[in-house]
Structures are given as structure tokens and as C-alpha cells.
């Protein structure tokens, strides 16, 4: 069972390769990818259980021992994120069966989907900084294909910008890795951390930390580097958008979390101040965007930026409470963003438009849709029994403990404005006089609803059953608070 942690990467990889051979047989593609994604969820659950009992799992690829070869490390944080990724992938896949359209399915939608999951799971699992870059590229390459698949005008136009931004970010990533290698002479993250603590965090290491912040901030859409996100995420079809919104930016946030708690935790005065300022600005600017637009897709897209800000604020505070809160909120946000995007997708496919001014009175005909949306809106804003609340509470508590009152207050206030931005959709779209829309009878609302309902149930259980989930989350946060656990597990000393 030593290779167990490799399975969440291998299963989608093999599935993707197999699916290429079935590119013209859509039914076979659906079955194969559906079954493999369910297997992936099961494997991830088993992995989480294994780590709960046996501690951090590591795998030295080809038996090259830890600092010399590539190491894959699965601690609780990465295993939980892999599990969430698998769940989101499974449900999004379920949604795409009925909505993505045969044209796209025939042109390698499912293989690309699986390769994207390979990249995301790999980025969560790897313990080697250059390998992180490689998995980023796997993920990005698949995302380039997914964002342009279908070839409509807006997709072509926006994907050029997406591609260009990511090429520059990747180049910067390699530059930063080069600098880091020249300073510490190793690529294994645990070993880097050890070396840095031996020599102390000098000025050059702080510069490298800042460069990493730029790189991961570009991928994770932290202020001021989120400029590309609203345009690029607007273009692709809804399942792809859900996948991107739930997973891709979160990989950037995870990388910030990992590097700042594992590598650059010695001299946090400067770095954490910058992180906190950027986080607060991300929240504010995200809120401005979310409140300003009357386009439902745009509102949800700007909510991604707010969530990234909240999580990064939790990381910047660096108390045990706030880190636990960040982990909690990160997982919550992956689930709830996928739900919201899928629900918005159903609204758009019913009404044929994403402009709020042309939608009204949906609750009469689609009460189920309306109430699911209402629940997910409450969860996003962080109303008590639901999952957004606990994460935010812990982050705010950590913020007050660390005496960053302004930041904590803004995180707290942001909940209200998030609620306002989402309720705008609810009030305008679901209330009012019912209208009839062209072609709404053709939309298979009932089958489309399955995926968001599964997600919202998981999200509610995650919030209500926080008592049961908490040991897992705190085990994940423990590694962040005490990086020695991670280092010892990898280097086996």
C-alpha cells in the first residue's frame, strides 16, 4: 500500500489516456469517466482515513531517498483537498453529461477534464518545488484546452489573454525556483525549509518569498493580480467555469499556504504584513465587483476573489486558529463555489441570458432551484449552521487574537456584503412576476439539479457536522503550525 497516495493522480491520468481512444463514442466516454471519478472519490476517502490513522504518507519516486529524488507527500491538508477535488470533479462531470453538448464531448472534453484533475491532485500532493511547477503546467495545459474548447469568438479572445498571463507567471515561477536553488541548493520542500532554518531567513530569502507570492498570486487571483480572472472565467461553458472557479484558483492559494507556512515562516514580520494588506484589498475589490455588476456570472466570479482574500488573510495572521479557519474555509469554498456555478448554469440554461434585468419570477416554476440557491447563498455568506460560518469565525478569531482588528473587521463585514450581492440575484431573479422563456421546456432541470443538490448536501453536512470534521481539519492545520512534523515525515529523521 506504499504507493497508495499516487492513486488520485494515476486514476484520472490512465482514464484520460484511455478516453482518447474512445473519442467518437460518447456513451463509452461518459461511463468510463463517471466510474473512474467515483473510484477516485472512494480512493481519496480511504487516503484521508489512512492519514488519520498512520500520519503523513510519503513516497520517494523510484526509491531515490528524500532530498535527492522527487518526493510525493500526502499530509492531511493535501489529502483533504484531494478529496474535495475528487468530489467536485465527480459532480461537475455528472452535470456536464447533460449540458456540455455533443460537439465538445466529441472533441476530447473528458480527456482534458481528467488531465486537469491530474494536475490539480498532483499539485496538492507533491513535495518538491519544481515538481509543483510541472503539475501546475499539466493543470494549465488542460485548462487552456478546456477554456478554448468549442471555439466561440469570446472563448478565443479571452483564452489568448489567459494563456499569456499564465505563460508569464510560469516563467516567473521557474525564475524563482532557480533563485531558490542557487540559495539553498535543494528542491525538496522539507529540505529547503530545513536549510533555511539553518542559515536563517536572510534578505534574499524574503525576496524569493515575495516572488513566490507574485507567482501564486497570479494563479490564485490575489489583489492586484486578479485582473485577468473576470474576463477569462466569463468565457467558457458552465461546467468548465465551475471547475476553474472551484479548483484552479484554490491551487494557487494552497501553494501560498504551503510555501508561507513551510518555507518562509522564520521572519514573518514583513511577509505577513504584505499578505494581510493584499488579502484585505482582495476582499474589498472583490466586493466592489460583486456589487457593481448585474450579470449573475460576474457576481459569482467576483465572489471567488473575495474568498481568496479571506483565506489569504487567515494565512497572513498565522495563529493556529486562523490557519485552521483557512483550511476549513478553503474546503468550504471549493464545494460552495462549484454549487453556485452549477446553479447559475441552470438559471442561464432556463432563461438563455445571464443578465439579471431579463430574469424574474423563477421561484414559481422552479421552487427546488430557488431554495437550493438560497441555501448555498446563506452558506457562502456564512450563516451559522452552514459551512461558511465556522471557517470565517476561526479566521476572525485569529485576527482578533493577533490584534489585526481592521482586517478581522473587514472579513466580518464582508459577509454582509457577500450576502447582499447574492441576494440581489435571489430577489431580482427568483421573485417578481414570472416570465416565460424561449426553449425552457427543453432544459432537463431535474437531471441537472442532481449535481448541485449532492454538493449542497455535502456542504451542509460539512457545516452541521463540524464536530466530526474538526479532528481532520485540526490535524491538517497542525502540520501548518508545526512544520517540523512535515519535515520529519519527509526526511525520516
Amino acid at each position, binding site marked *: 500500500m506504499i504507493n497508495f497516495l499516487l492513486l488520485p493522480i494515476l486514476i484520472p491520468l490512465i482514464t484520460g489516456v484511455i478516453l482518447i481512444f474512445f473519442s467518437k463514442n460518447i456513451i463509452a466516454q461518459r461511463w468510463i469517466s463517471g466510474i473512474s471519478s467515483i473510484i477516485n472519490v472512494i480512493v481519496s476517502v480511504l487516503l484521508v482515513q489512512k492519514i488519520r490513522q498512520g500520519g503523513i504518507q510519503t513516497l520517494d519516486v523510484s526509491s531515490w531517498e528524500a532530498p535527492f529524488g522527487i518526493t510525493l507527500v500526502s499530509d492531511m491538508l493535501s489529502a483533504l483537498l484531494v478529496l474535495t477535488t475528487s468530489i467536485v470533479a465527480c459532480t461537475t462531470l455528472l452535470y456536464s453529461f447533460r449540458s456540455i453538448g455533443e460537439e465538445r464531448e466529441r472533441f476530447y472534453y473528458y480527456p482534458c477534464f481528467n488531465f486537469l484533475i491530474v494536475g490539480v491532485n498532483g499539485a496538492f500532493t507533491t513535495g518538491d518545488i519544481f515538481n509543483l511547477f*510541472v503539475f501546475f503546467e499539466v493543470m494549465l*495545459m488542460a485548462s487552456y484546452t478546456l477554456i*478554448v474548447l468549442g471555439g466561440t469568438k469570446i472563448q478565443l*479572445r479571452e*483564452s*489568448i489573454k489567459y494563456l499569456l498571463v499564465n505563460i508569464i507567471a510560469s*516563467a516567473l515561477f521557474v*525564475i524563482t525556483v532557480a533563485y531558490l536553488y542557487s540559495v539553498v541548493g535543494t528542491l525538496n520542500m522539507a529540505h529547503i525549509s530545513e536549510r533555511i532554518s539553518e542559515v536563517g531567513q536572510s534578505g534574499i530569502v524574503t525576496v524569493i518569498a515575495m516572488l513566490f507570492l507574485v507567482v501564486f498570486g497570479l494563479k490564485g487571483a490575489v489583489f492586484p493580480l486578479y485582473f485577468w480572472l473576470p474576463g477569462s472565467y*466569463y468565457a467558457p461553458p458552465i461546467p468548465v467555469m465551475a471547475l476553474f472557479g472551484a479548483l484552479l484558483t484554490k491551487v494557487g492559494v494552497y501553494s501560498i499556504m504551503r510555501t508561507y507556512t513551510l518555507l518562509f515562516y522564520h521572519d514573518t514580520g514583513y511577509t505577513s504584513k504584505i499578505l494581510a494588506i493584499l488579502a484585505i484589498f482582495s476582499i474589498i475589490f472583490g466586493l466592489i465587483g460583486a456589487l457593481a455588476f448585474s450579470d449573475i456570472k460576474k457576481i459569482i466570479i467576483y465572489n471567488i476573489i473575495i474568498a481568496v482574500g479571506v483565506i489569504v488573510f487567515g494565512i497572513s495572521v498565522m495563529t493556529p486558529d486562523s490557519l485552521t479557519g483557512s483550511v476549513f474555509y478553503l474546503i468550504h469554498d471549493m464545494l460552495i463555489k462549484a454549487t453556485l456555478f452549477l446553479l447559475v448554469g441552470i438559471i442561464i440554461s432556463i432563461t438563455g441570458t445571464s443578465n439579471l434585468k431579463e430574469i424574474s419570477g423563477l421561484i414559481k416554476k422552479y421552487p427546488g432551484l430557488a431554495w437550493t440557491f438560497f441555501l448555498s447563498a446563506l452558506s457562502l455568506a456564512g450563516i451559522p449552521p452552514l459551512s461558511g460560518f465556522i471557517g470565517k469565525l476561526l479566521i476572525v478569531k485569529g485576527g482578533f487574537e493577533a490584534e489585526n482588528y481592521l482586517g478581522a473587521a473587514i472579513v466580518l463585514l464582508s459577509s454582509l456584503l457577500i450576502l447582499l450581492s447574492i441576494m440581489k440575484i435571489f430577489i431580482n431573479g427568483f421573485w417578481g412576476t414570472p416570465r416565460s422563456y424561449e426553449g425552457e421546456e427543453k432544459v432537463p432541470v431535474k437531471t441537472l439539479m442532481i449535481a448541485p443538490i449532492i454538493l449542497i448536501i455535502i456542504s451542509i453536512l460539512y457545516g452541521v457536522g463540524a464536530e466530526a470534521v474538526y479532528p481532520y481539519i485540526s490535524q491538517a492545520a497542525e502540520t501548518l503550525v508545526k512544520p517540523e512534523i512535515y519535515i520529519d515525515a519527509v526526511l525520516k529523521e
Partner: protein
Amino acid sequence: MEIIMIFVIGILFTCATYLMLSKSLLRIIVGTGLLSHGVHMLLLTMGGLKKGAAPLLGEKATSYTDPIPQALILTAIVISFGVTAFFLVLAYRAYQELGTDNMEKLRGMDGND
């Protein structure tokens, strides 16, 4: 040797930045190509440009070269290869579909936001 390399890298980055800021899509792609070349050379230089034998045990050489930067560059080159190829195809398709390669005209302001 390192000094010369640094200048070369700097010139490559300058040219890449200049090209990427231009309006034409093809110039931007050439710019990204130059950028990745600069990055690869930087990676090699930061690993240390040493003279030594191949890093094989049992060769009894006095000094060995560090193989890791070369392995990293190999990976990075392959990735930039793929991305550049994809970008070229994308640019061609976008030119066919949108009828322009001018970035000024590719702004997303016509009625969708």
C-alpha cells in the same frame, strides 16, 4: 562566464518584454519564446557554471557538475515547447475566427460586460 550569461539573459528579457507589449499577436508569441529562453539560461546560470566531469560515480574525477539544473531545463524546455505550439495554433484559429491579430481590437467590451 556568469557575467556574460547575466547580460545575455538581461537582453533576452528586455527584448521579450518589448515584444510582449506590442499589439500584434505574432510578436507577442515570439516574445514569450524569448522569455522562456531567458528563463532557461537563468536556470542554468543559477545552478553554477562549473567545469567538471559528468556526475557518474566511479569515474574518479576531482570535480563533478551539478546535473539538477540540466534536468530542470530539460523539463522546462519541453513544457515551453508545448505551450508555444498551442499558442501558435490558438493565434491562427483566433485570426481565422475573429479576423484580426491586433490586441487592441480583441478587448472584451462589446456588450458582454
